[in-house]
């Protein structure tokens, strides 16, 4: 119950202002098609440099929570999911809006998001300290394998092709080695003066997530992109609350599935929403109504994608393995303040850890309140023309990357990585594993070197890294995650081939 002691820190004027700003800004950014939660959080990181670590994380955490929920606004009113996590919401939400029930759909989506989100954060509160204590038993070899596990899990689960996902992870791990070696001071892969200090993680995050989005918007050309917003009629909030709790099956299935999926590193909100929608439909006596504007479809999808947010931070805060690409960006936000996740975070910076987690709990409530009242405004903002959006994102990326160290080198690195990532994505590569490689690379290398030194003084590298219960367990999980994804890919390609043959 340590978290209760730090509740007061969330209510200081600055923290509260950041929480409010992050929540309202996140709702609006989330409602804007094309601005993913990961990109929104990455673009916000430069604004946290002058803040205390806890306050910076409050801003990022509030933005993370609200962008996921805000994505429902454009999913319901424009039929354009604000983020991949809101794809399932579109199925019934937009139909409800077309039937004149837009306000009801929005209210149910924010209320379900809040219930799912609060449950998810409670899971984060009660699971994290236990796992963080367990993480104390980890030595260099285990931490090395954990870092590798983080990269392989997200590489295999977040990519359409396992090999390309793993290759993206490898590229990220290689990029992390650029610069001066920590132990020998040797230069590694410095082929341009801008790389002398290595690749700055924040500049890289902005480039990898924002620039491909900018280029994708360029690629759409000058077409008229103004989506038409469906007008929202008035609907009683109390009636929506009563309806939400009368549909407990959809709410509990969504919340549970979202929480479980959030705990699995690499599986995002998109999967949580779709699986929850599918399972709610299976268990519903009104299966036929799904897809025709059934409120349970909206409740299940939104409860799941927000319930995923809290648990996705459990592996991040305890074992340094981000549960989602956005969590990876949050890890970057932690590292720039010199804070390392795990027991160090809870033993040496409990104020930072608990203030951040508590703020997420309060943030869920604020997100719900503001969501219910600013949804209409957010929908208007979602209509901002793409030409304006593309110019804003580009300028924010340049200023954000520059402000990290007041270095043009970082801006060049950001641009090169972003343009490269755009083309890599077009060839089936994925940004998430690359980012994970970049973030976890230094952790993997430091523990590999430390472990190698211990191994050389004892039984040798093979015995040190490949034996012992925990090492073997982690190796088996690494192999299993790759094998499972290969199997799924083969199965999928077989079905595709059969379908192609039949067609």
């Amino acid at each position, binding site marked *: 119950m340590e978290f209760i002691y730090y509740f007061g820190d969330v209510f200081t004027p600055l923290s509260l202002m950041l929480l409010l700003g992050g929540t309202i800004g996140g709702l609006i950014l989330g409602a804007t098609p094309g601005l993913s939660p990961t990109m929104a959080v990455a673009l916000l990181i430069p*604004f946290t*440099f*002058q803040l205390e670590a806890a306050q910076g994380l409050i801003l990022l955490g509030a933005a993370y929570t609200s962008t996921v929920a805000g994505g429902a606004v454009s999913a319901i009113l424009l039929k354009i999911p604000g983020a991949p996590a809101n794809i399932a919401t579109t199925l019934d939400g937009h139909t409800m809006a077309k039937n004149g029930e837009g306000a009801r759909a929005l209210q149910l989506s924010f209320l379900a998001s809040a219930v799912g989100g609060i449950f998810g954060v409670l899971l984060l509160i009660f699971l994290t300290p236990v796992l963080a204590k367990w993480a104390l038993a980890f030595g260099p070899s285990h931490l090395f394998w954990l870092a590798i596990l983080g990269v392989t899990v997200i590489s295999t689960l977040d990519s*359409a*092709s396992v*090999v*390309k996902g*793993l*290759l993206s992870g*490898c*590229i990220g*791990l*290689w990029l992390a*080695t650029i610069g001066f*070696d920590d*132990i*020998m001071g*040797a230069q*590694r*892969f410095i082929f341009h003066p801008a790389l002398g200090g290595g690749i700055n993680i924040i500049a890289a995050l902005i480039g990898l997530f924002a620039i491909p989005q*900018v*280029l994708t*918007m*360029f*690629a759409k*050309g*000058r*077409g*008229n*992109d*103004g989506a038409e917003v469906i007008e929202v009629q008035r609907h009683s909030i109390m009636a929506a609350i009563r309806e939400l709790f009368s549909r407990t099956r959809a709410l509990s299935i969504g919340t549970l599935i979202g929480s479980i999926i959030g705990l699995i590193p690499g599986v995002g909100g998109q999967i949580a929403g779709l699986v929850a929608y599918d399972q709610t439909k299976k268990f519903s006596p009104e299966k036929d109504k799904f897809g025709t504007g059934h409120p349970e479809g909206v409740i299940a999808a939104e409860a799941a994608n927000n319930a995923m947010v809290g648990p996705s931070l459990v592996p991040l805060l305890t074992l340094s393995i981000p549960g989602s690409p956005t969590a990876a960006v949050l890890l970057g936000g932690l590292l720039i303040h010199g804070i390392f996740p795990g027991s160090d975070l809870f033993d040496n910076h409990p104020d930072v850890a608990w203030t951040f987690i508590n703020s997420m709990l309060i943030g869920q409530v604020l997100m719900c309140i503001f969501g219910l009242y600013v949804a209409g405004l957010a929908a208007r903002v979602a209509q901002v*023309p*793409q*030409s*304006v959006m*593309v*110019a*804003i994102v*580009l*300028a924010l990326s*340049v*200023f954000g990357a*520059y*402000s990290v160290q*007041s270095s*043009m080198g970082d*801006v*060049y690195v950001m*641009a090169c990585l972003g*343009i490269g990532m755009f*083309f*890599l994505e*077009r*060839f*089936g*590569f994925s940004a998430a594993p690359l980012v994970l490689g970049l973030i976890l690379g230094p952790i*993997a*290398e430091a523990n*590999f*070197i430390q472990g190698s030194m211990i191994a050389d003084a004892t039984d040798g590298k093979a015995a040190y890294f490949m034996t012992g219960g925990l090492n073997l367990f982690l190796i088996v999980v690494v192999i299993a995650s790759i094998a499972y994804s290969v199997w799924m890919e083969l199965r999928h390609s077989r079905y595709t081939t059969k379908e192609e043959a039949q067609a």
Partner: protein
Amino acid sequence: MNRSQHIFGSGLVFAVGLWVTWVSYTQQPAEAFLFPRLIASVFVVLAGWTFGKAVMGLSKVGNGVSRTMFVNMLPGLFVTLVYIFWAAKSLGFYTATAIAFFILLSMYDPTPHSVAKSWIKRGIITTIFVAIMYGLFAMLLNVYTPKEILF
């Protein structure tokens, strides 16, 4: 997507993989390249596999860049490159941002260029945006930006 695009893309990644492997195994001190060697070995194998699949026409994931996409993207990409690699440093951050912002807005705005009001609208949006950026970065966050010939 056509096969040649897959071959080109994966070939480029494979070439980087070969270079990383070569550097990792030839540069000294060897201790500093212990971890890069580990990464490079996996990197080059996976890149080789991907390239091999592309050459044999078995690459299926990825839509490539269509001609229309490329043509649409090219002017924006050009402005972006000039803005980042030349104008921001040479003209000053805020001037370069205002110019790039206005050009991009004009290039991708679906409103016909013959409508005089659209130019005024773009000018107002650009001015407001640059003023907000100046307030945020120069005044609130105290970020010192290159000023050069203009501000």
